[in-house]
């Protein structure tokens, strides 16, 4: 059995609090006991009085004109309460156009909760049927008659801009959503002067998130109060509160969004979907709570997709291993609409920013084209552009290493930005505060016993066994500032807040604007608050996921929960501790400097003698204000906010390695082992971080090896079910060893950077390089994900 490996810090980590007990340790997650006993509360578990259920008729084709909707028979079915279409809902919900001001020239078209007159992708919701039960709604759906005529579709992204391809939104002029070019240094000269130029075309399959709990919500419009409550499986409750208020023209204070347990999110549940707005509209029309739970089949065509990119790229390298330049052209298709409100141009934009990221070359040229097509909209999904940029970069670096016959680890060592060069800028203009590529490479070499593994590989190759080792260095964007969305006009908070309150019995309640979808935010917030205040973890209760209860904040995305939300909790905990000591000083008639708060008691700082328990401070502060001086009021609830403002983003770095065995006769790849060395700054809870990284790696492996939304030439998804769309299961996944280098960010006291997405960023590249290392003696390579047995056999010339 392998063990969790947690390293000593790279740089000495200072103590954050006077009595550090929990930060940096792996105590039990507060929610774990509840979840293993099946006592979670997910949206579909919630039953409200008079709750109705909605199902949607979705477009069965990629592009069609809706010529008639006959709901007469559906309305006659038992239990049916309402059948509504696009024009019905447009009367109360405004359309939206998802663009961002800082993505120059970006365009999209107005989108409605339910399609009006035409549907633009297979799976777009067109008609809603609400009934007393889900089964009744589904029965009635069978009797709905929708007449439609097929419209010509723009299916393939490769031909989306061709003159004879239909323009999906004629008012936009063409199918180009966004384009960006970047040219830094003397790229042509660098390529002309290189000893070797290696070019390759990388392809990434369109895939999707497959959260085990599908998207779901309950909208509950109170006609008496004119107030909306939405129970939502979502990552950004305040963002949804703002959007519901604006799209329905109601006051923000009239909207409450509650996120209880969320069954996985990964970016799938950070967007505003047409059926989200439709469900709210239906609740308003009926004056009853309406529940929507996507079934798995409709999830496949209505959850966002991601990652279909075609990247033509090249690298210039010298014989001594110095990388001189990268150049790449990225084409990506995003469906017929840019997704609301984060937009669908971010993923490609990230690829431009991140290609070549770990390295010190001075010449880089990139071009990006983001095009519309009649397929399910794509948007931000775990890793957002990173897996593409990393695979392109690291695939090219391996090609270069092979061309100059240099060890893949060695070429990376020679080219990464050195650990002592920070702060500095990357060639695309991104700002790095402090990274540790050299330390991570050294740690990886040791962790995987690189030399021994190479020897084993060579020995087995003689026996006709083809094993490969792949390495991928990476950077990951975390702790974003307002540069991500706010500057572009999207009302998505970059700051987060925490309110810490001393309860009368000495407990501490902490309300945090960052929620929990399984990462363990509840655990790390509890750890941080307990250490910051000076109480046992058992005394701390963390509350998240309710816009009416917590401070305002951004939520979970871009690996910001620990770094941004955690810092807000630390600041609030410290402030509460100071306020508690002020109250205790008054009660004890001592100077505040003479006393300390230590493990739930007020003690004498000099003698360490217990003076009074916290519960006594709470009792007097709350119930016996008559005993306190008239000019003194205890403030035992404090709120603090934090926004990262020192850099646009705080980048993390890491390196991964994959060890695989390829069967040249069948094309099957066995994943033998995976290693990750990660630098996410201060590790708050090693066990949680390690499993975040492992889960992200497996999600990356899914895209690299198994997952792809397959479409036919008409734009119909061929494998929109879990039997045909393959996700990683336990048996084919490798054991994953994780180690850490810790370079804390100086932009916060906590020093934590994000850890949620690096695994997904690096895994596809590591696996690709491992497969191609195994295939190298057979003069074959694969660069199109997912790496299916068929693609390997084609590369080997066997089919």
């Amino acid at each position, binding site marked *: 059995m392998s063990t969790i490996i947690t390293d000593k810090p790279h740089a000495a980590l200072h103590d954050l609090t006077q009595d550090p007990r929990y930060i940096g340790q*792996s105590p039990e997650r507060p929610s774990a006991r509840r979840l293993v006993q099946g006592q979670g509360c997910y949206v579909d578990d919630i039953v409200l009085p008079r709750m109705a259920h909605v199902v949607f008729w979705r477009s069965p084709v990629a592009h069609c004109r809706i010529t008639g909707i006959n709901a007469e028979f559906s309305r006659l079915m038992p239990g049916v309460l309402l059948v509504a279409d696009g024009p019905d809902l447009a009367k109360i919900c405004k359309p939206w156009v998802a663009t961002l001001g800082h993505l120059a020239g970006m365009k999209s078209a107005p989108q409605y909760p339910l399609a009006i007159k035409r549907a633009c992708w297979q799976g777009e919701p067109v008609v809603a049927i609400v009934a007393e039960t889900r089964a009744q709604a589904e029965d009635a759906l069978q009797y709905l008659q929708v007449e439609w005529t097929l419209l010509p579709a723009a299916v393939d992204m490769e031909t989306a801009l061709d003159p004879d391809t239909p323009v999906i939104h004629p008012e936009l002029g063409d199918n180009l959503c966004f384009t960006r070019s970047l040219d830094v240094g003397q790229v042509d000269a660098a390529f002309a002067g290189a000893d070797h130029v290696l070019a390759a075309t990388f392809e990434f399959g369109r895939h999707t998130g497959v959260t085990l709990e599908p998207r779901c919500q309950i909208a509950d419009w109170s006609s008496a109060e004119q107030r909306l409550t939405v129970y939502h499986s979502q990552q950004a409750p305040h963002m949804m509160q703002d959007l519901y208020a604006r799209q329905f023209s109601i006051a923000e204070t009239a909207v409450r969004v509650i996120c209880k347990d969320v069954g*996985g999110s990964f970016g799938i549940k950070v967007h505003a979907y047409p059926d989200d707005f439709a469900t709210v509209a239906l609740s308003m029309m009926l004056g009853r709570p309406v529940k929507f739970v996507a079934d798995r*089949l409709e999830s496949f065509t209505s959850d966002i997709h991601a990652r279909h990119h075609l990247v033509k790229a090249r690298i210039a390298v010298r014989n001594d291993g110095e990388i001189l330049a990268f150049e790449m052209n990225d084409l990506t298709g995003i469906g017929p609409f840019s997704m609301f409100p984060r937009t669908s141009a971010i993923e490609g934009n990230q690829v431009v920013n991140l290609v070549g990221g770990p390295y010190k070359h001075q010449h880089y040229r990139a071009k990006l084209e983001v095009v519309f097509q009649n397929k399910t909209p794509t948007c931000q999904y775990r890793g957002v552009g990173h897996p593409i940029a990393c695979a392109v970069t690291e695939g090219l670096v391996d090609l270069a290493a092979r061309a100059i016959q240099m060890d893949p680890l060695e070429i990376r060592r020679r080219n990464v930005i050195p650990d002592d060069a920070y702060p500095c800028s990357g060639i695309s203009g991104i700002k790095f505060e402090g990274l540790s590529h050299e330390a991570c490479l050294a740690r990886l070499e040791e962790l995987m016993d690189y030399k021994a593994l190479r020897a084993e590989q060579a020995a087995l190759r003689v026996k006709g066994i083809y094993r490969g080792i792949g390495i991928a260095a990476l950077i990951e964007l975390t702790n974003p500032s307002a540069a991500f969305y706010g500057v572009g006009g999207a009302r998505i908070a970059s700051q987060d807040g925490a309110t810490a309150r001393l309860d009368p019995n000495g407990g501490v309640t902490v309300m945090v604007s960052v929620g929990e979808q399984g990462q363990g935010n509840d655990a790390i917030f509890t750890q941080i608050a307990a250490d910051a205040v000076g109480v046992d973890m058992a005394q701390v209760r963390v509350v998240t996921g309710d816009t009416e209860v917590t401070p305002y904040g951004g939520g979970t995305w871009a690996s910001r929960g620990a770094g941004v939300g955690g810092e807000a909790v630390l600041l609030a905990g410290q402030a509460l501790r100071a306020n508690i000591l002020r109250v205790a000083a008054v009660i004890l008639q001592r100077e505040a400097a003479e006393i300390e708060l230590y493990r739930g008691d007020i003690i004498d700082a000099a003698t360490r003698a217990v003076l009074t328990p916290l519960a006594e401070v709470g009792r007097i502060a709350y119930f016996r204000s008559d005993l306190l001086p008239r000019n003194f009021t205890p403030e035992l609830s404090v709120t603090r906010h934090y926004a990262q403002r020192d850099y646009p983003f705080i980048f993390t770095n890491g390196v991964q390695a994959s060890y695989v065995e390829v069967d040249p006769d069948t094309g099957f790849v066995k994943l033998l082992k995976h290693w990750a060395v990660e630098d996410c700054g201060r590790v708050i809870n090693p066990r949680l971080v390690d499993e975040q990284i492992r889960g992200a790696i497996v999600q990356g492996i899914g895209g690299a090896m198994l997952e792809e939304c397959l479409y036919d030439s008409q734009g119909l998804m061929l494998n929109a079910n879990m039997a045909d769309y393959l996700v990683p299961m336990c048996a084919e996944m490798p054991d994953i060893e994780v180690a850490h280098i810790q370079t804390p960010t100086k932009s916060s006291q906590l020093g934590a950077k994000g850890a949620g997405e690096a695994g997904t960023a690096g895994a596809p590249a590591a696996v690709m390089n491992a497969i191609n290392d195994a295939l190298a003696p057979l003069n074959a390579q694969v660069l199109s994900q997912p790496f299916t047995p068929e693609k390997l056999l084609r590369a080997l010339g066997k089919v």
Partner: protein
Amino acid sequence: MSDLQTIRLHVNGQPHSCAVPARLHLVDLLRDELGLKGSHLGCEHGVCGACTVEVDGRVVRGCLTLAVQADGRQVRTVEGMKDLPDARALQQSFIRHNALQCGFCTPGMLMAARELVQHKPDATREEVREWMSGNFCRCTGYHAIVDAVCEVLAQRNLESAA
């Protein structure tokens, strides 16, 4: 669809008599009629394993089993695990190893793991991976789940040797 069938079954040891439509799935009976929300619906076509429950001692997909098929049978769900020492050991081990994140797959995982503990007590790490591969977890990467199950197997083997 109004034709109701009367079935009698035990769920976590408690007798129930229910009038159910013939098309009702077992997991919908458990969740919607009996209020046992611990069994989850992830795909409703028998692939993801989130709805895994035990019928007469063997695990089944609650989304592929009709409620009427449970007539006269003993059904066990995650809510009934508290009565079983091996299930409790698995729950503890899952907590210790952080073998769960969002928790949506966890009840089904525990059901599958308990069957493994009962039927294949000498399973190797690779065999544990094979056995558990009928349940989808999008969060953990499986590594910690495998660790958690292996630890329980090892503990039990130690106990039975002693």
